[in-house]
């Protein structure tokens, strides 16, 4: 990174989110735990985008939900604007939610079909602000323009919009209270290919214009590369690699990151002819009983005996590049 370090907006330290698996007749007794997020630490500076990538079930969405305090984390600390929010009671969380918003993946299920687009976008204003209905209307019009929708569309219902337009409505709703921080959870994955670029550009424009900070959750490594300043790669509840986008894509160090990158198809037969793939053995194991030691070792092409023994910490290797692998830098 160059220039003076910017202010830290969000810092997560040793976050754990373990969900109980209930058993017994009354289903009160947890017999096992799903370690959805296990000892995760990262920080996001103001105005930057952290891309969080990984395959389904790796815990990336759970991290987002812990940060928004939709879940109460099992342990660890979450500092938002220098304030610890991991253990705040619900009453103190509510006002913070104006500052933190969420953009969902599926624009078809995240909008109430019985409300007009205008009323969906106005909803946060009704809850959080004392504005009059006239002021609210003005603000909704402004938000519509901001996300590239005609204000005259306010009276329409979600089904009258295309997928891309619905995602714009979802974005307008997230922006209603002037948040500082937005979690984008797979915001373009459900959209058609020709629409994805429109929404990606919109998110970038809004970030620059409004000085937003993003946690960008996605399984699409190409989109994450395009939009992120820093990137964290997750596997089975843990961050295995964390660095700047350039370092990650030009110099991936963790064997999992390397396999992931090699598996992404490139739309060019000339390039594909020359490309080698790293195929991983087996499937992602269950987070209920993750493998001992490094939880990637059963599938890792570079695993050695020591990998089964201890879970590697995320350590700095230089160039602000952190990796959780004992084989790196041997």
């Amino acid at each position, binding site marked *: 990174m160059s220039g003076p370090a910017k202010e830290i907006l969000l810092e997560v330290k040793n976050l754990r989110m373990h969900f109980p698996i209930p058993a017994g007749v009354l289903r009160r007794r947890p017999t096992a735990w799903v370690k959805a997020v296990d000892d995760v630490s990262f920080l996001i500076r103001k105005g930057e985008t952290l891309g969080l990538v990984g395959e389904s079930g790796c815990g990336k969405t759970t991290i987002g939900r812990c940060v928004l305090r939709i879940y109460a984390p099992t342990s660890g600390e979450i500092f938002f604007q220098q304030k610890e929010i991991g253990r705040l009671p619900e009453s103190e969380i509510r006002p913070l939610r104006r500052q933190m918003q969420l953009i969902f993946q599926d624009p078809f299920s995240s909008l109430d079909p019985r409300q007009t687009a205008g009323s969906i976008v106005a909803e946060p204003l009704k809850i959080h602000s004392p504005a009059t209905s006239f002021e609210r209307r003005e603000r909704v019009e402004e938000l519509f323009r901001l996300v590239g929708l005609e204000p005259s569309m306010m009276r329409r219902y979600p089904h009258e919009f295309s997928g891309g337009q619905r995602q714009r409505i979802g974005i307008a709703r997230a922006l209603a209270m002037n948040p500082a921080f937005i979690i984008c959870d797979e915001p373009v994955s459900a959209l*058609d290919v*020709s629409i994805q670029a429109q929404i*990606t550009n919109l998110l970038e424009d809004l970030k620059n214009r409004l000085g937003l900070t993003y946690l960008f959750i996605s399984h699409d490594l*190409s989109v994450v590369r395009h939009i992120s300043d820093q990137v964290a790669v997750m596997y089975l509840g843990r961050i295995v690699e964390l660095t700047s986008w350039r370092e990650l894509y030009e110099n991936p160090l963790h064997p999992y990151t390397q396999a*992931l990158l090699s598996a*992404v198809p490139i739309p060019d037969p*000339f390039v594909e002819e020359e490309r080698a793939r790293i*195929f*991983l053995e087996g499937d992602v194991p269950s987070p209920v009983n993750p493998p001992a030691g490094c939880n990637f070792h059963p599938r890792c092409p570079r695993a050695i005996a020591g990998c089964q023994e201890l879970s590697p910490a995320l350590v700095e290797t230089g160039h602000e590049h952190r990796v959780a692998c004992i084989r790196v830098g041997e």
Partner: protein
Amino acid sequence: MHLLEVKNLRTRFRTDAGTVHAVDGISYFIDEGEIIGLVGESGCGKSVSQLSVLQLIPVPPGEIAGGQAVFEGRDLLRFEAKGPEMREVRGGKISIIFQEPMTSLNPVLAVSRQLTEAMELHLKLDRKSSRARALDLLRMVGIPDAEKRFRNFPHQFSGGMRQRIMIAMALSCRPKIVVADEPTTALDVTTQAKVLEVMNDLVRRFRTSLVLVTHNLGVVARYAQRIYVMYAGRIVESGTSKDIFGNPKHPYTIGLLRSVPRLDETRKERLVPIPGSLPDLANMPGTCAFLPRCTRAGEDCRREPWGELRRVEGEHYTSCRMEMG
């Protein structure tokens, strides 16, 4: 003669909003041992065209309004949808793999039974030999401990394993053609890579032909020899994989290729999207369906009806008249 040649296929659906011409006169072919890609976004007609060839369209509201699908010298569309000839082809000589393996496998039948059922029907095998073949197939698609897992139920497998079972099922009756409709869209990227590789190896080994139906340009770039690009019910460009990716001619193909960020290119400041949104198929203007989103449309495009495919060179065709000069 081609193994399958589809000519001027038209499929429409009657809806409350009007008649939707889901497939609006498409022609394509596939030869033995070939992998072709059918690429397009939602509603372009790529899946409906494949379901039409197998007469799997619900009638009504759907209707195959015209065209031919000549397979081994016979027009499949002339067969009764539920008649014996169609049944012999469907699942036997032409099989289909769907996107979501969990909804296409029967949750209350063990995979062993689901595999042997079609073989007993189409290959007239007895219980014992169909079981032996089913087990072989599971090993071939890379299910670990196939003997042990043979009697398991679909929910006991992961998504990637389920899709491999679907591949085993699709190949079980030694089909001539396998249609794979978004076979890896529901899978994670590392699993996707493996499933595609398994499929590619198997079709090569058995000289099966494969129709890869997908919205993912990357997937077809690696595996397909020829590609058909569809938009709003029609094929707008076709050619070899190298024609389509190396020298695209239709503004839609060019737009699609430009709009996706690529891992192997320098990072751009901004992506270059295709403006506008997908057309409403119940309200088609008669002119080129891509016109409202096209940045290089000319006077002719606004005046003339949607163009037919015309040859660029060799096997490369496009419907765009602007490219023809």
